[in-house]
């Protein structure tokens, strides 16, 4: 168990930013645990969703933003649906993930590497390119054997085209502009 000095750890600006950016009144969470009970990713979380919500209420920025749970959340919104106080819990998780990323708390780098590999192919071709995403992800993560067990079946079913569909350069320009703006605003690209 970690020891937390609530009088020193509390960061009111963190509570305010989370509430403003998610548009949610997190103070209304009364720890019923419905969100955690229905969460399909709970078994890989280090802190459960209700604990994350409590962490935000207490302003424990470090503990919340360093949680791997933010990265493993599947955005399935079961928590949001089942919250008796109508908090968009999945929306709060997404806001926290954005904040964690912007501030350099990358506690599950393989998730971010996968997302960035995917976006790189969209940037280059305008559309998703599965083989390219996999290749980039393997290079970034050095997990060279990822999902190779699926390749024979996918190839046999003709579901894994090797030639990317070059659809448009417009998405490349959108992602470039996004990266430039993020850099200017001091966020992680």
């Amino acid at each position: 168990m970690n020891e937390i000095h609530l009088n020193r750890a509390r960061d009111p600006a963190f509570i305010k930013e989370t509430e403003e950016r998610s548009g949610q009144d997190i103070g209304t969470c009364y720890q019923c645990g419905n969100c955690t009970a229905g969460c399909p990713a709970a078994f890989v979380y280090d802190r459960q969703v209700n604990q994350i919500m409590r962490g935000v209420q207490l302003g424990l920025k470090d503990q919340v933003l360093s949680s791997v749970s933010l990265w493993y959340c599947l955005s399935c919104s079961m928590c949001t649906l089942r919250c008796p106080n109508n908090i968009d819990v999945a929306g709060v998780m997404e806001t926290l993930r954005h904040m964690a990323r912007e501030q350099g708390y990358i506690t599950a780098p393989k998730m971010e590497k996968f997302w960035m590999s995917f976006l790189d192919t969209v940037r280059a071709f305008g559309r998703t390119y599965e083989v390219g995403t996999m290749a980039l992800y393997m290079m970034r993560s050095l997990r060279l054997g990822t999902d190779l067990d699926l390749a024979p079946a996918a190839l046999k079913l003709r579901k894994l085209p090797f030639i990317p569909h070059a659809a448009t350069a417009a998405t490349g320009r959108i992602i470039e502009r996004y990266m430039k703006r993020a850099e200017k605003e001091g966020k992680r690209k």
Partner: protein
Amino acid sequence: MKYSYFPGCSQEGSALDYGKSTGAVCAALGITLRDIPTWSCCGSTPAHAVDEELSAALCARNLDIAAKDGADMVVTPCPSCLSNLRAALYRMRDDHFRERVNELLDEPASEKLPDATSVMQLIGRLHDAEDIGKRVVKPLKGIKIAPYYGCLMSRPAKIMEFGDPENPVLMETILAACGAEIIDFPLKTVCCGAASGIPERSLTALNSGRILALATDMGADVIAVACPLCQMNLDLRQKQAAKAMNRLFDMPVMYFTQLMGLAMNIAPENLGIEQLCVSPRAVLAKFAANNGGGK
């Protein structure tokens, strides 16, 4: 009402069969699907996981082209694309958000953008159960279907507006009209593990495993799906799920459009049936036996 079609990237790869069967069923129902010219990726999970403004911009580009093309409505078969398109429309009602999105585009998006809906809802809107029933040539009699929507089609409820967010019934209505026996499937909107199959396999293996196990235990012949990612997790990754659950599965996972197509007497090769990983031979055998033995 003028519809524009947003196929989604998976239709050019892992969900070729969904594309084929959607096209064939819509053509048979007299629904014309015209692609949004030069459509591009909606950003999928990675874009919104990184930033919702980026996600909205990637969607807004497509919505804007559809608007300029005169569309009132964008239709997509993929729940993940739909969720991103609808989230973009929902968030762009806010002026500040819209401005931030416009900054990322080549030119600001049209003031009035078309709404977005799913192929399933479009079919349901244009053809009620009675009407679909009239078009059934070979009923799916005796075939037990576990309907599985996945999590994105109906949630978040305020954005998706797809009936009851935990218990939607549109797929059941359509497949029952095709003569199938529908199982009341409790996991129908519980997440399959989504896009985490590559970076964190345990998430897809265990969640998809639970769905496959319950469908098997409830006596389903087939799981019917509407989402390319759910289909891949349940079908192509079925062996990984079996390993996680420490049991064997032999559960075909078919798109609802493939099942509709069979009932409407569309040839299996036009429905991409041969591109399923787990063979639906038992389903096809039952189907043939109940329709006079022949194909």
